């Protein structure tokens, strides 16, 4: 054995440990598995994938060149383009890609047991998600950090470019609606949570004013002050919840919260950024990173047992949390954490403009996504450490489990997950809430799981209610920042799009144009939010699959772009690196999209659901959730809108596949390199 073989020995050891732990996790039946097995299996997988597969992609597929100047070097302006230390940039990139997606998806997927979700997260990230992030980062880095829409237009053509832009806007709308829905579901009928989250608005405004007039530029100082105020707001929430008059003032129904959020989104996105958005961004970003680190330390330190079975009977698609069989819906439910198309927007955003050396892209692109995947694994662990009976009590729609501990205990025990009414009432009391029944949307479940882990590490049961509301605050805070920033970004997108037809709309300094575009954007996501909030099946059932489909659709678009670039670089013998995940994602999105439209089960197919309501209307009957004929018609309209939206997503995928294959063939037939890179060897030669 020569010395070059020796360097593989530690990696063989890591691989062996990974396989052994994975075997334990996968085959253990009956006995609860410790979460550490899951952590070790995941980390080993990441290390091996990073060491070998990402290096293969960097050297063989992309041929990263450390001597080739990056956009940050060529266009250095100290502002947008700055060569940045790779560790510093890693933090920036990770903070931008990590959000609610990797936290919520795995929690919802836990209804099938932890094993299917875990295997998909690991396989998905290694072969699809991290590849996508890394490849898009590479493609954008070689083109001056251009955005995904511009890249598709340049490499595939103008028409696919417009289709991709339109698809991106629709994704924004669905993401904002589903994120807002999660907040509504977490805060409905919870005065403690509502007070704490509402308090973040004056806190952020105070920070904004402080930074504007008292201590300009003091980001660290103002963030520390804000953090202290946030913790006080959590304690204040407890006091509010205990006082009957104040508790009443901060108790809202889902519908009321829905309107409050729509109003908030509208106002927040037209206020100056320094006043509300930027300071809220500091709080949410730092709290997010801190909590994720805390959760990782907590899981290792507490080493909790996984109470959820490895696989539940709901892999047949009859689960109460969301409907549809394992294929394709598991792969739609867990998007972020395995593969997330939204990352392609981040990887073609600010990050490529800050890379100092081409070879850093591997650590930032591939490595950053592995880290996000680990967040998803932690969320899966957090959802699996709670008692399965409590999990299903929290995540089943009220239409199935009713609203009292007795009905819920009976319904969930009937499902095969024994739980008593006392356990349900006790859990609600432990976390300082009046009820935990049917708190769908993932966030409350994750908060209970996190409170479980944090309380075991720090403070015990007495601190459980604090940690629960801390976790709710943590999620709500960055979701609200995303709603705010997303509405603003959507408004600019819309002004750009509408400006083509009405030039006056393009004026971003015109109040009329701003208010119209913001109103349209808020109305678009508000429509889906309202529909979700009033849905008796909890809304997650409708909106989360639509979100998953749109997100995986964007991932497929990004991977098709990367495939075209590989062909244009005349590296087509390695095109399988992006073609294999593309085929998988296309299979998932098309199957799921078509099933959401045409499936004969009204719980899955929108058209079947509409037909059931139409039949009832014809007989003059009113079906829940509708209370009168007007609402019956509204449900039917919603179903057709949802079906049309799923149809749009299917169309976008099919169209981009067509244009992608066309471009690949064109590049294949060409004798030479056809990729449209900027700043390649030709530029360097000319400069000399």
């Amino acid at each position, binding site marked *: 054995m020569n010395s070059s073989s020796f360097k593989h020995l530690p990696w063989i050891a890591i691989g062996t440990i990974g396989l052994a732990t994975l075997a334990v996790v996968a085959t253990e039946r009956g006995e609860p598995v410790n979460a550490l097995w899951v952590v070790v299996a995941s980390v080993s997988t990441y290390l091996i994938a990073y060491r070998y597969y990402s290096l293969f992609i960097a050297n063989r597929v992309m041929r990263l060149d450390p001597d080739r100047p990056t956009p940050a070097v060529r266009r250095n302006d100290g502002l947008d383009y700055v060569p940045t230390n790779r560790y510093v940039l890693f933090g920036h990139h990770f*903070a*931008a890609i990590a959000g609610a*997606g990797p936290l919520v998806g795995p929690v919802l997927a836990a209804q099938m047991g932890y094993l299917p979700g875990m295997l998909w997260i690991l396989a998905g990230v290694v072969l699809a998600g991290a590849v996508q992030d890394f490849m898009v980062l590479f493609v954008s880095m070689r083109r001056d950090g251009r955005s995904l829409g511009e890249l598709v237009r340049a490499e595939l053509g103008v028409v696919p470019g417009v289709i991709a832009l339109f698809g991106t806007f629709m994704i924004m709308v669905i993401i904002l609606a589903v994120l807002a829905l999660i907040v509504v579901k977490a805060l409905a009928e919870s005065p403690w949570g509502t007070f704490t989250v509402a308090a973040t608005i004056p806190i952020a405004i105070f920070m904004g004013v402080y930074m504007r007039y008292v201590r300009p*530029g003091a980001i*660290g100082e103002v963030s520390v002050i804000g953090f202290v105020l946030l913790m006080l707001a959590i304690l204040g929430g407890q006091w509010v919840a205990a006082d009957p008059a104040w508790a009443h003032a901060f108790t809202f129904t889902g519908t009321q919260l829905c309107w409050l959020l729509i109003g908030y989104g509208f106002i927040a996105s037209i206020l100056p*950024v*320094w006043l509300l958005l*930027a300071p809220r961004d500091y709080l949410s970003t730092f709290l997010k990173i801190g909590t994720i680190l805390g959760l990782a330390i907590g899981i290792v330190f507490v080493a909790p047992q996984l109470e959820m079975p490895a696989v539940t009977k709901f892999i047949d698609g009859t689960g109460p949390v969301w409907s549809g069989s394992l294929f394709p819906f598991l792969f739609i439910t867990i998007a972020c954490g395995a593969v997330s198309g939204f990352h392609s927007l981040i990887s073609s955003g600010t990050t490529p403009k800050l890379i100092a050396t081409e070879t850093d892209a591997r650590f930032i692109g591939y490595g950053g996504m592995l880290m996000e995947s680990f967040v998803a694994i932690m969320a899966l662990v957090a959802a699996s450490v709670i008692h399965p009976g409590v999990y299903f009590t929290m995540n089943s729609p009220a239409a199935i489990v009713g609203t009292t501990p007795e009905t819920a205990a009976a319904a969930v025990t009937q499902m095969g997950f024994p739980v008593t009414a006392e356990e349900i009432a006790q859990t609600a009391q432990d976390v300082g809430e009046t009820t935990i029944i049917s708190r769908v949307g993932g966030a409350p479940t994750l908060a209970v799981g996190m409170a479980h882990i944090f309380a075991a590490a720090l403070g015990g049961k007495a601190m459980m209610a604090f940690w629960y509301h801390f976790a709710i605050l943590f999620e709500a805070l960055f979701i609200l920042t995303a709603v705010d920033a997303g509405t603003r970004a959507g408004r*600019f997108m819309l002004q750009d799009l509408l400006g083509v037809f009405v030039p006056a709309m393009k004026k971003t300094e015109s109040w009329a144009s701003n208010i119209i575009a913001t109103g349209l954007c808020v109305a678009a996501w508000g429509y889906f939010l309202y529909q979700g909030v009033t849905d008796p099946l909890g809304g997650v059932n409708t909106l989360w699959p639509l979100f998953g489909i749109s997100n995986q659709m964007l991932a497929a678009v990004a991977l098709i772009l990367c495939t075209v670039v590989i062909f244009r670089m005349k590296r087509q013998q390695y095109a399988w690196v992006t073609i294999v995940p593309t085929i998988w994602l296309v299979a998932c999105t098309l199957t799921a999209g078509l099933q959401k439209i045409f499936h004969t089960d009204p719980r899955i197919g929108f058209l079947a659901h509409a037909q059931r309501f139409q039949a009832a209307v014809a007989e003059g009957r009113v079906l829940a959730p509708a209370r009168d004929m007007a609402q019956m018609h509204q449900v039917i309209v919603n179903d057709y809108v949802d079906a049309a939206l799923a149809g749009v997503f299917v169309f976008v995928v099919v169209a981009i596949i067509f244009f992608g294959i066309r471009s690949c063939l064109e590049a294949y037939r060409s004798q030479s390199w056809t990729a449209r890179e900027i700043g390649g060897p030709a530029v360097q030669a000319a400069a000399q």
Partner: protein
Amino acid sequence: MNAAAGRVSSFLACLCDSARLMVGVPRYEDYVAHMARTHPEQAPMTYPEFVSNRQAARFGGVKGGGLRCC
């Protein structure tokens, strides 16, 4: 001892740089150095101006970033 202290302080500086970049503010020192190198005739923005410039850029448009994942 000094070497260890130096490593700790450079690690902390790196941490602070990363925290600032997470909210869209790159290294001010790099900006000042760049201005001195390429535009010595112009006065660079002060640090507070630099922060609000970056803040406006982060949320100021389609390409302004501020986008974050779901």
